[in-house]
């Protein structure tokens, strides 16, 4: 018998390359393990959901000039390309992607400016309602 269904909720607050990987590495592992994952993209994290956002994510601050070098290093080490990891994770199922409604207002974004993988635009109360009975909650 498999273990009962579990749930993980992550707030994705950062939009830099180094912090864009972990939510999807965790969501991929969770999804493969029949664990439902809910990703709530807010503030800088929302930049990732803009069309072309995952492709243009850079390392933070001064390190941003080394982004290309880091991407090459990751490729050689067998890491998936970020956009590809997102695609494969969503295709597998069990992962839900939400955009923060307040951040969308702040950045003047509409749902059609975001990638089609975004399931819903949500407020904090809706996300809390999901997270309150989650087994794992993270802020990245």
């Amino acid at each position, binding site marked *: 018998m498999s273990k009962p269904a579990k749930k993980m909720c992550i707030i994705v607050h950062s939009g830099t390359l180094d912090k864009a990987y972990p939510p999807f590495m965790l969501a991929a*592992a969770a999804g*493969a393990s029949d664990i439902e994952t809910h990703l709530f993209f807010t503030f800088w994290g929302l930049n990732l959901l803009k069309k072309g956002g995952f492709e243009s994510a850079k390392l933070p601050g001064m390190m941003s000039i080394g982004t290309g070098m880091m991407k090459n290093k990751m490729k050689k080490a067998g890491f998936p390309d970020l956009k590809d990891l997102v695609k494969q*994770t969503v295709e597998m199922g069990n992962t839900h992607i939400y955009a923060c409604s307040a951040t969308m207002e702040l950045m003047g974004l509409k749902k059609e400016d975001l990638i089609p993988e975004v399931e819903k635009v949500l407020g904090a109360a809706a996300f809390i309602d999901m997270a309150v009975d989650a087994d794992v909650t993270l802020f990245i």
Partner: protein
Amino acid sequence: MSESPVKKLDCRGDQCPLPILKTKKEIQTIGIGEILEVWSTDPGSKEDFPRWAERTGNQLLKVEEKNGYWVYLIKRMK
């Protein structure tokens, strides 16, 4: 039911979490009771595969260490 794998999945060179992700997708393409063979160079896979199998209700029949990679035999149980 035969105890030999019906499919082989070569994840050598793939970094975590790709081996588990690919295994999940591949196991859904074989029948219940059939066996999938996975090859992985990821050292984390030694701990990942037993836990993954238990979590998802599949059966890890065998783990074998080869020269620089591991071979996992997984029976799809549901």
